[in-house]
């Protein structure tokens, strides 16, 4: 009588315990390699680390140096231009493509993967391909000249003021199809009954999208925003392959800035402080947004 509940107790306790035990290593690894290194970076940003980490604290010196660097100002301006255009245009194109594909057209099964395939390429491939396409000496401009359109000019990639827009172009090309897929899934999830009811009430097509469909796509908007914005902030490979940060330093982004200061320029302290600023920027944008969106669900 006394032993039976105790045994059952042990079993339930074991059952409760095992999932935790199984998860423990990965949780520990995440804590060390994600949060541990965030704290380490934070610490390094207050030290005078140069070629290798040092533990000599210097206060906010790295941060004050960072914000006096015109190179850093260029990087964050570029990120602002890149992120807003990239997220905005990808979302618009993705939404438009999804809406058009959702009109029960013929050949959807063929069109959908065509739009989606750029996402299967890595950013390095996209960057290299667009680099060749946009290069005035071998790409589009050259081809147009060969075809007889001598006055055609498209040298954005070689122009310090416009090169950042070529990065947007390549990134939008790559991601729009993926955003389309997300919106398409959202559109397919909308209950047809509601649409029929709206039609019966005499709603126009525009009103239906404006009042019924778009509001219901809200979760898709959230996912698109979260995915695109983290891609924008961490984008490194695309810039490296497409422009190499150039012409000059005109297309440097905070990610490339952080990498070069930390690993090639022997200024690990400044590199770490730029990483911390990047983290805080993302947190400042994402946390309120996620908070607002997720609270409503409850």
């Amino acid at each position, binding site marked *: 009588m006394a032993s039976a509940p105790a045994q059952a107790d042990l079993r339930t306790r074991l059952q409760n315990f095992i999932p935790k035990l199984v998860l423990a290593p990965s949780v520990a690894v995440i804590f060390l390699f994600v949060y541990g290194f965030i704290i380490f970076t934070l610490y390094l940003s207050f030290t005078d680390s*140069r*070629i*290798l980490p040092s533990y000599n604290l210097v206060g906010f010196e790295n941060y004050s*140096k960072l914000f*006096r*660097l*015109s*190179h850093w100002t*260029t990087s964050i301006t570029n990120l602002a231009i890149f992120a807003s255009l990239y997220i905005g245009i990808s979302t618009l194109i993705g939404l438009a493509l999804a809406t058009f594909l959702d009109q029960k057209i013929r050949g959807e099964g063929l069109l959908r993967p065509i739009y989606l395939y750029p996402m299967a390429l890595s950013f390095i491939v996209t960057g290299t391909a667009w680099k060749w396409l946009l*290069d*005035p*000496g071998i790409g589009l401009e050259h081809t147009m000249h060969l075809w007889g359109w001598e006055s055609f000019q498209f*040298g954005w*990639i*070689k122009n*310090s003021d416009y090169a950042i827009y070529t990065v947007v172009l390549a990134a939008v090309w790559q991601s729009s199809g993926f955003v389309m897929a997300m919106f398409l899934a959202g559109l397919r999830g909308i209950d047809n009954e509601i649409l029929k009811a709206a039609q019966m009430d005499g709603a126009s097509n525009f009103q239906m999208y404006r009042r019924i469909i778009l509001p219901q796509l809200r979760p898709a908007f959230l996912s698109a925003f979260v995915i695109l914005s983290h891609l924008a902030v961490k984008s490194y490979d695309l810039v490296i392959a497409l*422009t*190499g940060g*150039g*012409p*000059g*330093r*005109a297309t440097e982004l905070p990610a490339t800035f952080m990498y*070069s200061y930390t*690993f*090639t*320029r*022997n*200024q690990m302290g400044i590199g770490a402080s730029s990483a911390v600023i990047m983290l805080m920027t993302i947190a400042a944008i994402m946390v309120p947004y996620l908070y607002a969106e997720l609270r409503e669900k409850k």
Partner: protein
Amino acid sequence: MTLIKQLKLSAAVLALTATTAAAADVEVLHWWTSGGEAAALNVLKGDLESQNIGWMDMPVAGGGGEAAMTVLRARVTSGNAPTAVQMLGFDIQDWAKEGALANLNDVASEGGWDAVVPAALQRFSKYEDQWVAAPVNVHSVNWVWANKKLFDDNNISVPTTWEEFEAAMQTLQDAGVTPIAQGGQPWQEATLFDSVVMATGGPEFYQKALIDLDPEALGSDTMKQAFDRLGVIRENVDDNFSGRDWNLATAMVINGEAGMQIMGDWAKGEFVAAGQVPDEDFLCFRFPGTQDQVMFNADQFAMFDQGGTVSEEQAALASAIMSPSFQAAFNVVKGSVPARTDVPDTDFDACGKKGMADLAQAAEADMLFGSLAQGHGAPASIKNAYYDVVTAFFNGSFDSETATEELVTAIEIAQ
């Protein structure tokens, strides 16, 4: 149990084979990947192979070695440093400061390095009186490489002053060729600017501004004038230069698409590899206004500490690098001049002979200056700050006045 035992055994075997492989091989990290450079490196490979030492090649492309230095840092932090690494100037000092380099004093005294290597070079090869690197060559960056046919066709004689240089560029422009072939990477633009600063301000100014980093000199009108001149050169470069590799720019001169390239003497290797002959197919002359100075950088091989001692292969590699016969054979192919001053110049071509004579003369007259763009003026952080400003100016983001102001701030922050 047996499984674990087997695993342990195979791990032990693996470890053993790994060490035996390392005992007969040298792993060399370098960034000599272009045609002329690879040919020069084969001389060293052949030399070691004749001593039965295997060569594990570890090339990391990218002139100036930025990428190679990143790989090196990863290798060292993971405790797996290569045997020997190609390095430039202050990088050697930085790594020596971290205590990562082996002490080559025994090999050096055996080979009598102290007597034959110029003092300006020893400043980089030695750290606190210990030899930590073996210099392979001395490059100088204040060279102009020109297409002789274009010069003859347009009646251009070798310019010796800035005005003549400007006129030569104008003549080439009028003849419908690109006057200056320029590669579009920050280090190349900065390498060009080294020569412009020297020519504009003279040796004292160069020393003060780009080596002693005096803020007053950096922000002076002379510096602004140097930027103005760089702007003139920029106008004589084609619009498609950004991102171009240096050897592609050299190819433009070889093919006659462009008249001149201002580049270190490694460019000669490309001419030679293309079967061209100095003074017949191409010309080499000092950047106008820097005829008496030699602005150098030296490739050296630093040996990484293998548990407190210099291993046999490292010693063999170091003495192979420093042997006069190798220095001659290697530098004939590479385009540079030997790091030892006692090597006869018989095998060298006209440009090589001129380079060796210039070096000897400059060393004598104290006119040997480290090139900032090549990591021989100041440490990497300052070199890169310099790149930032020069490349931003060259690509049109700054005017010369802003560039001068930015140079002062950027260098102050990097210090």
